[in-house]
């Protein structure tokens, strides 16, 4: 909301410098986005150089067709000679003159100048040159009664300041010059001037003869009032009005439209002016739209309405979407002579819904959507009638049509004095509270331990005691509050074990050289297809966003993998070679119930990574290790070990993984994720080269089941003994089966068996391979002897031969 200081001064004396006023407003709850000078820059002395002049004589310039040489009386002993280029300059006009030494709003410096040989000491100004309008056709012609030599600033805002304020949604009263002025009066402790009574000529003709009004949809329109003005002449607005309309950021149109905008800006009550001649049947009906009914709005857009939208219609068709925008064909034009002036109050919920359904907002609807005081209507109509009859002529028909479903009267609230300090943590005296509330326009009565406060109807936001507490503290000054801390009497905080484990998982991966990414939770549904998921799989059925920003961000991810692949591809395009990324984030599963109930989808906190390129950066002493299946599996193993989780791996079938290089991860018999090489077709779809590996794990499960406490075991008093064992087995026999049987055959003293070498080739024969195992034996009661271990080992061999067909490699 743009508010020129000169306009605010209609209602309040402003003594603070603009910057200080802005900061005071900000610290009491009215955000000021910008404070900027308006019009000619400079102090009061500069303003003296802008004066009223009278054109005494006008002659054509001897050497220039388009220039005039004028003699202008600016209240000095003799008239000045001023050369003027405007086509409309004429003798007898009262004009705005700027004298040498001044600077215009557009930065132009005024000096004594010779124009085609004629000396010009000053300049006759247009509205644009004073910043009152965007573009001027010629110079500004001022009212005749202004006297030569008067300071122009007496009449017009030659130099001004503009406050651009952001009003919070609870304060629609401040979406007006008057409301803001009231706020400024309260915070600067200056009197607020209510404004004058408005007078205007009224005809004998009763308004009911001009118009009949019905409000069938009174639930959406608590009050509808109208007046009729006949015999107006539509034309341009006077300079002062154009100046204010322009300063407020609107565009001057004509005197009728400008007056309705001016009243809205001044008082906060939107108005609508109809050309009475275009109101079919001289009838206004405030009703819900009929389904499919259309309207072409002022922004020249055809809109289709639905039956929950409120319209202002005549006997035939809707001419305004109530409170939002009028139709292009009921607009006031040059030929309009009779005007129907509407001031109404609409239910904010209806305005909000219609705005959002039509994606249409206006200065008017942004006010109505916040809820307005219906008691603003009569003064707004009065102000508009007074201005219109003054600027456009005409007479106001007698009476007002005013249809009210309910009236709003001031109401009372009680404020307990002790409650204020209880909530704020600072003592404010009863007298201070009463003073603050009075300055805000409330009536306050002392009732002992409480104040009885009568709320004016323009403060619809003050409904409860707590609202008054807020008013007290914001005017009292938040800077006066002490900085304390709550005093906790029981309990204590901290991260849960699960939260610490998630951090540990992240730290383990970062410590292993992976970089964490954060990807949007919504993805392109095409990505799920690219993962080759079958349509029936749960991962292919995501939560769909009804109003996405784009199709690329339209479904909630069911896996972390596609986002990670996309990030990997983007970084590859930036010529990154080693791309090792991980993410910790949620995936969303509509087919599984949420622990939060309420029909919400299940959210799983997952951990995913992708590896592409060498495991470590290039170095001349280091052979390049590719990020292959075993690299990814090793990382999963390292992670699980770090979390204290014992897991097993087995072959799995995932459509997005290489069928021969894919494993599921089992913990306690439950599948908690997968690791593998990404399928070449998937990589192709994501623009990645072959050989990218990835994994995804359910962190919710892992952080809940991992080891929470490691209990000490003495591994030192009776040390372990290691022995190697090379077994030749069938090529297709999986290592985990060998290890399981070895474990069983080794008995309780065999603590660990690990594969440290694999060999296939002529030495072991076709279809066979050798697995070299390192066996760790340990007893917790004695030191094992060489003979004992040799015995254990030789006892294992027949079992391995029998159950695995394993031979000892010679």
């Amino acid at each position, binding site marked *: 909301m743009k508010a020129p200081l000169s306009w605010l001064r209609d209602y309040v004396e402003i003594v603070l410098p603009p910057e200080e006023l802005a900061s005071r407003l900000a*610290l*009491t*709850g009215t955000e000021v986005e910008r404070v900027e000078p308006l019009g000619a820059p400079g102090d009061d002395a500069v303003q003296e150089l802008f004066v009223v002049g009278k054109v005494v004589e006008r002659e054509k310039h001897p050497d220039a067709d388009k220039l005039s040489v004028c003699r202008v009386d600016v209240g000095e002993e003799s008239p000045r000679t001023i050369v003027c280029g405007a086509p409309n300059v004429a003798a007898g006009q009262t004009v705005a003159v700027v004298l040498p030494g001044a600077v215009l709003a557009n930065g132009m410096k005024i000096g004594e100048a010779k124009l085609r040989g004629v000396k010009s000491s000053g300049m006759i100004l247009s509205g644009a040159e004073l910043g009152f309008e965007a573009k001027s056709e010629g110079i500004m012609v001022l009212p005749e009664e202004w006297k030569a030599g008067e300071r122009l600033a007496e009449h017009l805002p030659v130099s001004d300041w503009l406050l651009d304020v952001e009003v*919070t*949604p609870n*304060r629609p009263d401040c979406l007006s010059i008057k409301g803001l002025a009231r706020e400024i009066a309260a915070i600067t402790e200056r009197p607020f001037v209510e404004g004058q009574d408005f007078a205007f000529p009224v005809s004998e003709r009763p308004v009911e003869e001009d118009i009949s009004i019905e409000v069938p949809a009174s639930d959406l329109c608590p009050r509808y009032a109208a007046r009729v003005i006949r015999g107006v002449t539509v034309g341009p607005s006077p300079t002062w009005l154009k100046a204010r309309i322009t300063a407020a950021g609107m565009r001057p149109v004509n005197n009728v439209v400008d007056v309705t905008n001016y009243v809205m800006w001044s008082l906060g009550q939107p108005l609508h002016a109809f050309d009475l001649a275009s109101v079919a049947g001289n009838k206004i009906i405030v009703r819900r739209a009929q389904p499919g009914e259309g309207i072409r709005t002022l922004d020249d857009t055809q809109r289709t309405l639905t039956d929950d939208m409120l319209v202002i219609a005549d006997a035939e068709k809707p001419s305004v979407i109530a409170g939002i925008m009028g139709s292009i064909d009921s607009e006031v034009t040059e030929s309009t002579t009779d005007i129907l002036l509407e001031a109404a109050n609409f*239910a904010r*919920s209806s305005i*909000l819904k219609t705005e959002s359904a039509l994606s249409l907002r206006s200065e008017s609807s942004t006010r109505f959507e916040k809820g307005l005081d219906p008691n603003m209507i009569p003064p707004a109509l009065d102000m508009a009638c007074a201005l219109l009859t003054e600027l456009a002529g005409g007479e106001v028909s007698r009476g007002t049509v005013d249809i009210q479903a309910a009236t709003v009267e001031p109401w009372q609230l009680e404020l307990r004095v002790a409650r204020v300090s*209880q*909530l*704020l*943590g600072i003592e404010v005296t009863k007298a201070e509270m009463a003073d603050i509330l009075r300055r805000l326009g409330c009536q306050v009565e002392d009732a002992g331990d409480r104040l009885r406060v009568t709320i004016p109807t323009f403060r619809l936001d003050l409904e409860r005691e*707590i609202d008054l*507490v*807020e008013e007290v*503290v914001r005017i009292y000054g*938040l*800077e006066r*509050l*002490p*900085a*304390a*801390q709550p*005093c906790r*009497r029981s309990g*204590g*905080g901290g*991260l*849960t074990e699960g*939260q610490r484990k998630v951090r540990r998982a*992240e*730290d383990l991966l*970062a410590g*292993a*050289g*992976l*970089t*964490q*990414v*954060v990807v949007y*939770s919504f993805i392109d549904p095409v990505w799920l297809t690219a993962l080759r998921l079958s349509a029936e799989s749960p991962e292919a059925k995501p*939560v769909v*966003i009804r*109003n996405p920003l784009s199709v690329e*961000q339209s479904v909630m991810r069911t896996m972390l993998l596609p986002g990670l692949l996309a990030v990997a591809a983007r*970084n590859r395009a930036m010529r990154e070679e080693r791309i*090792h990324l991980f993410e910790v*984030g*949620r995936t*969303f599963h509509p087919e599984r119930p*949420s622990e*939060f109930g*309420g*029909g*919400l989808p299940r*959210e799983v906190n997952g951990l995913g990574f992708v590896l592409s390129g060498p495991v*470590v*950066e290039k*170095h001349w002493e280091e052979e390049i290790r590719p990020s292959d299946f075993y690299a990814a599996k090793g990382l999963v193993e390292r992670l699980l070990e770090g979390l204290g989780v014992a897991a097993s791996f087995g072959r799995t079938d995932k459509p997005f993984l290489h069928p021969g290089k894919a494993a599921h991860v089992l913990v306690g018999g439950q599948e908690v994720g997968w690791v593998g090489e990404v399928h070449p077709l998937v990589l192709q779809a994501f623009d990645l080269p072959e050989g990218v590996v990835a994994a995804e794990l359910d962190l919710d499960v892992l952080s809940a089941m991992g080891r929470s406490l490691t209990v000490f075991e003495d591994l030192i008093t009776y040390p372990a003994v290691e022995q190697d064992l090379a077994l030749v087995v069938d090529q297709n026999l999986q290592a985990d089966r060998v290890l399981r049987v070895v474990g069983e055959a080794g008995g309780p003293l065999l603590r660990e068996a690990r594969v440290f070498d694999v060999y296939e080739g002529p030495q072991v024969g076709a279809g066979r391979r050798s697995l070299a195992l390192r066996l760790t034996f340990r007893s917790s009661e004695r030191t094992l002897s060489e003979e004992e271990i040799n015995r254990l080992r030789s006892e294992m061999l027949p079992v391995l031969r029998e159950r695995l067909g394993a031979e000892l490699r010679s």
Partner: protein
Amino acid sequence: MQGLTRPDLKQIYERGLRDFETARTLAELEDLRVRYLGRKAELTNLLRSIPELPQQERPEVGRFGNLVKRELEQALESARKDLEQAELAKGLEKDRVDVTLPGRPWPLGHLHLIEQTRREIEDIFVGLGYDVVQGPEIETDYHNFEALNHPEDHPARSLHDTFFVDETILLRTHTSPVQVRVMEQQPPPLYLIAPGKTYRRDSDATHTPMFHQVEGLVVDRGVTLADLKGTLDTFAKKMFGEERQIRLRPHYFPFTEPSVEVDVSCMACNGQGCRLCKRSGWLEILGAGMVDPNVFGFVGIDPEEYSGFAFGMGVERIAMLKYGVTDLRLFYENDLRFLRQF
């Protein structure tokens, strides 16, 4: 060698010591060993011939001969050690690397700056005795709006451009619904923060459709607005430095009353006014306020018995201010050149 009179022994002794000392290589030393202590050495021969010596010479030769032998052996050993050390040193001297070349790579990854910042925030409040809780990112309209005192016709709803899943389910527009969920489940006292992802239908240079917030909630007996001020002052100092100040400005949020916005004194100019703070000396960091009695009404907490405060901050905003990141979108582009900086 006191009392040694035999000139041949004396000569062997003195010459041997001198020769061992002056040997320059281990090979030279070996030759000397053979010459003085070998099987055919003069001393060995002499010792071997003792039985053949005249009776009166035997004791002296026996005693001194063995003494000389031991002494020479010791001298030889000491000379060998010296030579070995010298040769090792010489070998090491030759075995040089360019210590200024880079070491073998040990991979080091990075936590995302959002994660790092979130942890910093969490750790500050954990230090103040808060718990960290989580809520769903896909929420009900009830928890995201209604129970936070945004009834359906409330103008504040239009401030949130909401992504909807259906009529009543949406992507949470703030972390505030976690307040409601916790208060529904647990009685006061409550001291908690709720970090997480939030979503709004807005995308431009200063908005991303997904972003991160940290919500804070305290509900206890006698909690005041002054307590909120002190808590956030502590937070600002721990996050941005001990010299930081905060200021509260009245504001409006439907679920707190009184509501405030909180500014921190600009860390770039120390509050003097610069480009970062648009010459105001202050930077807005979060919104806060006293829990609105209507919200307590929704969760069945008596506002006459308990009071509380809540606050919410944007993690990206905090990170941008603290680390000087100039473009919000960098957080989600996941360009390794950006991520590796932190």
